[in-house]
């Protein structure tokens, strides 16, 4: 390629690399600045990795980790953990489902189908929902709806609506217009025209986005329990705060298995949809 360009005309030669000196200056300046920033950060934050690796702290760490073992495998407690896992899964599932429905509804005006004013307005709502993190929503919802999985579900649904709504709106905006337009030109009204003309073009992409968010929401739902939104997270917080490490270990393992299983299933489903 380079040889081609050189032989073609003389004027091109000037933009070929002039050797090592040509790029080293900017590289060195950039890496120098980066290094200085890292060193300054360490100094500012007072991070002392030395104490992390001293023999004394190693012993106390080993003691702490050891206190988690063996996990509590009492059948009664396992049942409780399983119940928590199901609750966490349900929170993520319903939260994502509500968010997908609401997201699609808001995505329609946000994609610019109903005029500029409606598009600006709904995009503002989506941005607002999205810019507030799930944990903040959860804290607000616990205040509004009380402790428990209902608050967690609402929190996930609100944030995810913002995320999915924006993704759906972009998918709809980028889909070819002609299929739906041709149906409208044949006298078809709005809803069926969208369902027959545009939805089939964006459906798989939207479902894949939904599954992806479900995976993230499972992990998020476990965290939300910490602020009182139910499920495994709430159990973990409870047992950790009264120093029942064995029970906490069981809950952590349950979280791990739940995330693994959902990620695996959702991966398989998404791959299958991409193929079909």
């Amino acid at each position, binding site marked *: *390629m*380079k040889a*081609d*360009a050189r032989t*073609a*005309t003389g004027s*091109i030669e000037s*933009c*070929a*690399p002039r050797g090592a000196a040509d790029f080293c200056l900017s590289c060195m300046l950039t890496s120098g600045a980066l290094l200085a920033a890292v060193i300054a950060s360490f100094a500012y934050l007072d991070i002392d990795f030395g104490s992390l690796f001293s023999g004394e702290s190693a012993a106390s760490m080993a003691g702490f980790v050891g206190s988690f073992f063996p996990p509590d495998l009492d059948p009664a407690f396992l049942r409780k953990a399983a119940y928590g896992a199901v609750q966490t899964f349900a929170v993520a599932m319903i939260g994502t489902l509500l968010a997908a429905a609401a997201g699609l509804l808001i995505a329609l005006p946000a994609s610019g189908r109903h005029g500029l004013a409606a598009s600006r307005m709904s995009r503002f709502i989506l941005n607002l929902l999205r810019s507030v993190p799930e944990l903040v929503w959860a804290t607000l919802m616990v205040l509004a709806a009380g402790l428990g999985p209902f608050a967690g579900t609402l929190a996930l649904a609100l944030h995810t609506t913002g995320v999915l709504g924006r993704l759906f709106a972009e998918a709809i905006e980028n889909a*070819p217009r*002609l*299929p739906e*337009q*041709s*149906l*409208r*030109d*044949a*006298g*078809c*009204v709005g*809803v*069926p*025209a969208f*369902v*027959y*003309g*545009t939805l*089939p*073009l964006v*459906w*798989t992409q939207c479902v894949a986005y939904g599954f992806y968010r479900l995976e993230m929401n499972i992990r998020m739902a476990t965290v939300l329990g910490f602020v009182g939104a139910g499920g495994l997270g709430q159990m973990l917080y409870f047992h950790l705060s009264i120093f029942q490490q064995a029970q906490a270990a069981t809950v952590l393992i349950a979280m791990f298995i739940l995330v693994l299983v959902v990620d695996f299933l959702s991966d398989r489903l998404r791959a299958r949809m991409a193929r079909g």
Partner: protein
Amino acid sequence: MSFDLKQVGLTHGNGFRALHGISLRVGRAERAAVIGPSGAGKTSLIRLLGTALRPSEGRLDLLGDNPWQQPAGKLRALRTRIGTIHQSPPIPPRLRVITAILAGRLGVWPAWRGLLSLLYPADIAGAEAVLARFDLADRLFDRCDRLSGGQLQRVGIARVLYQQPDLILADEPVSALDPALADAALGELVSESERRQATLFASLHAVDLALKWFPRIIGLRAGEVVFDLPTARVSDTMLSELYAAEGGVLPTQANPRAPVRDPGEARMDIGPQKIVKLDACRGR
């Protein structure tokens, strides 16, 4: 009377004058073909008649009404009576053939019936019957992205026949079909128009097909009607004048693309194109 244009002009948003001074009158159950070199305004004319575009000047009368003076409800009702066959069928690839065809009647069906039909097809027999006319009945439940380009184009035609419009507009409806299939598909369109007394107005690239199937030929060039005559009175001179800009060679089924310019000239063009490769090293 099916449609009546008086001094109709169309200027696109970018200022390009696609059509001007078009006066055309086509009666009920009449069949007319519009031919002309590429860029003559054939597609614009079809889109104008399909109420997809609004004329910028002149008077347009469609199936007895001026569509752009109707309230929304009446315009929608008018549109259900107009079926447009597009050159590349506007069908989402993941749709099943039967769904794509049933979509033709969405304008007539109440919305709930259209939505319910996604769960279970509302009219399997009707869709199968119309598909059978294009030798595709066995593909009824296939997905549209499993079809070839020619098969999809025939599904697009079948959808419009299923719509049962009073005015069938067709924009190069058989461009993706081989000569035998193109002939058969046009034959089906013509027999549908005869059977249901529907008007058929088609733009065609292949002049021989237009002359064979249509009793009336409209020559369009640079957005103006050059001639509008019964087929018997269209002479070879008129045709070669119409296609003068394409070297006077008539596009036909056997020779679909008339040469744009003389081959010697085209070869000379290759020279300078090869040299300029500035962009390749600009992104360094």
